[in-house]
């Protein structure tokens, strides 16, 4: 079996695009992966195109040899967009190989160790505040709206939700995301000022009111502060019985410092690439939960990162804010790693979201079921992708 063709497809996802890689073999087998150009990933398709000649003609079953080769030819620009491209290729190779063997990917990786995966409603309220128009969602503008979303999460059977800091006491409420230079104050200083602290306290009180005492609430601070600000924010969140506070920082020692001074478990690392990036965070005891982006790293590499984390008695969780195919890829990852904490999923999506794949993930009572078909257990519906062409961004 040899790889004959490398193609990528793109679909409109409302506030962004979804990107898919398709590998076809000489005997007609197809392997898919989902990747993403929209958040820091612009250029991944071009990098994939550059690597394609090194893949065509290779046996996809030896995916470790292919990935080792791709890493070597881009060794001088490791990580970043290059790794996102290699991750996309690795994931499509895994799908081809598992399909050739007639087994789900998790079986090829030695699993499963579980048959259902607890999920949390991610960007809860966030998309409804920032992207309601692009994504055709009900709008969140007020704290009352937040109470209602919390209630909705409980009523729909979710056991956990994650939200992001929002500012309400202004004419046009907005998500506080200065770490990505989004609208509003705070960029480029990245400080936790009184207004932000006050707003986030009120936001979490509203979520707790709506979701009730049994809901686990996670808060994602992303890259929006620096060490001092992260610690102030984490301490402000302590009264709200938080499941984890998510903090992205490039300094493992600084993160260890924050973690050692708050009572809330710390999750981090979603923007790291490969075992070599994660290692200092483990050595510094920086995190309770290491978040791994499997579309970026590749599912096989992600399992290696998880096994490294396990040696440090650290849990892992997937970074999963993409389409159904990425959710399926992450389900396979979560099915195999013993040290899983919880899985992210975005329930707020564009109306045509389900059309883009042939099989959608099964969600029951806030938990995901493992697929049983070969490969990822789903494929991209090319006609539906064509019906929703990507927007120029």
């Amino acid at each position, binding site marked *: 079996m040899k790889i004959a063709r490398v193609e990528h497809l793109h679909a409109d996802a409302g506030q962004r695009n979804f990107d898919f890689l398709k590998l076809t073999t000489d005997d007609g087998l197809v392997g898919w992966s989902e990747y993403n150009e929209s958040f820091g990933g612009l250029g991944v398709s071009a990098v994939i195109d550059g690597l394609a000649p090194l893949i065509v003609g290779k*046996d996809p*079953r*030896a*995916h*470790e*040899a292919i*990935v*080792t080769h791709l890493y070597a030819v881009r060794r001088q620009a490791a990580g970043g967009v290059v790794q996102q491209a290699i991750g996309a290729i690795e994931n499509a190779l895994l799908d081809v*190989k598992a399909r050739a*063997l007639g*087994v789900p990917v998790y*079986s*090829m*990786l*030695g*699993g*499963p*160790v*579980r048959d259902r995966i607890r999920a949390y409603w991610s960007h809860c309220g966030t998309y409804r505040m920032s992207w309601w128009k692009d994504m055709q969602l009900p709008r969140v503008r007020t704290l009352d709206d937040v109470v209602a979303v919390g209630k909705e999460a409980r009523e729909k059977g979710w056991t956990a939700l994650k939200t992001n800091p929002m500012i309400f006491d202004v004419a046009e409420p907005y998500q506080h995301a200065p770490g990505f230079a989004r609208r509003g104050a705070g960029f480029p200083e990245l400080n936790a000022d009184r207004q932000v602290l006050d707003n986030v306290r009120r936001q979490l009180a509203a979520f707790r009111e709506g979701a009730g005492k049994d809901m686990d609430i996670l808060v994602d601070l992303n890259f929006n502060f620096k060490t001092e600000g992260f610690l102030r924010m984490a301490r402000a969140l302590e009264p709200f019985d938080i499941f984890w506070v998510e903090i992205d920082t490039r300094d493992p020692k600084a993160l260890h410092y924050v973690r050692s001074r708050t009572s809330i478990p710390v999750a981090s690392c979603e923007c790291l690439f*490969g*075992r*070599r990036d994660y*290692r200092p965070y483990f*050595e510094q005891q920086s995190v309770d939960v290491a978040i791994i982006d499997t579309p970026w790293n590749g599912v*096989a590499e992600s399992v*290696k990162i998880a*096994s*490294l984390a*396990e*040696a*440090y008695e650290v849990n892992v969780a997937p970074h999963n804010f993409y389409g159904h195919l990425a959710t399926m890829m992450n389900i396979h990852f979560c099915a*195999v790693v*013993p040290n899983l904490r919880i899985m992210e999923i975005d329930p707020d999506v564009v109306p045509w979201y389900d059309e883009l794949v042939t099989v959608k993930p099964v969600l029951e009572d806030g938990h995901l079921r493992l697929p049983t078909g070969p490969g990822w257990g789903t494929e991209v519906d090319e006609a539906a992708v064509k019906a929703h062409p990507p927007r120029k961004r």
Partner: protein
Amino acid sequence: MKVARLDTLHADAGKGNFDFLKVTADDGRVGWSEYNETFGGAGVTAAIEGLSALVIGKDPHAYESIVATLYAARRQAPGGIVQQAIAAIENALIDLKAKALGVPVYELFGGPQRDRLRLYWSHCGFFRIGLSQAMQIPPVRSLDDLVAQGKEVVARGYTALKTNIFVFGEGAPYVHMPGFARSAREFPALNAERRVVAALRDQLAALREGAGRDTDILVDLNFNFRTDGFVKVARALEPFDLFWVEIDSFDPQALHYVRSRIPMPLASCESLYGRRGYRPFFEAQAADVAIIDAPWNGVAESLKIAAMADTYEVNVAPHNFYGHLCTLMNAHWCAVAPNFRIMEIDVDAVPWLDELYTVKPTIEDGHLRLPTTPGWGTEVDEAGVKAHPPRRIG
């Protein structure tokens, strides 16, 4: 598919026994692993039997789930014999799964990076000194015999050899192995006395003379010294252009100290269990090559250790001084690990070794050819095993 039964089989290996685990599924499929009770492993069979109730009725495809359960069930006594038992089970389950899918084991781990593996002739001269009768192999009695042994290594196509410490000229020649209480002198002090250092230098001069300048020579000091002795001996070996010196120490910082003060690469870690056992050695920059015993750790866990080593830019090599099935089990993970250094093999073996297996490894020009048939690529020949019943091991 469910696991229906676990059986253990044992065969005479001359220098001890070879031990095999046979896992049979409800559809009649069989998975094999080789393990070893002879070197520190007495009791593994009993540990396997104790765990078997947790394996029977389980789907071998989900071997990670089974191994996670076994680890948890014995969490209070991890490592050691317990881990050797878990690994034997893991390895047999992997064989069963690969056979059910009709692929070689390396396909379950991402496919091969290479189709031949460079070998070194291990225990070169060792078995011929003390065990030539038991193993029915030619004896080594003198330094001249060692020169001849070096020539034989080259004549048989090997590009590397590894030796231990031999003492000639004090009565019957013997292997200096106080770390395992095998030689009365220097045990339990484990000091590097002048006469031992001198004997090792004579030995390496003889092997270099016989093997020539193009053969890589490795020296295994095992656990036979303490920190100062390891430094002293390794420095004394500088003129012999060694590929690696192998040193076992349970202190990662001590090993880092030794490595930073000797002129050649250092290999170690063959007696460690699991990623948690290896981690402090990687963090302390203790070794150039981490040796992994796949029969003890399990092939899946061994690849996790190798992947961890890779993040520290450290190479790995298999601990492989067992029978043919172990050699092939090691070949599968060595084919997959990008950071593979070189593979151990015992060329000197009892004349009936081949009879114990249905397929023997293919060796050409000192390299092992990767098998291409399902599972490990060989099975245990039960009639052959029955014809060579195990010895009683003290």
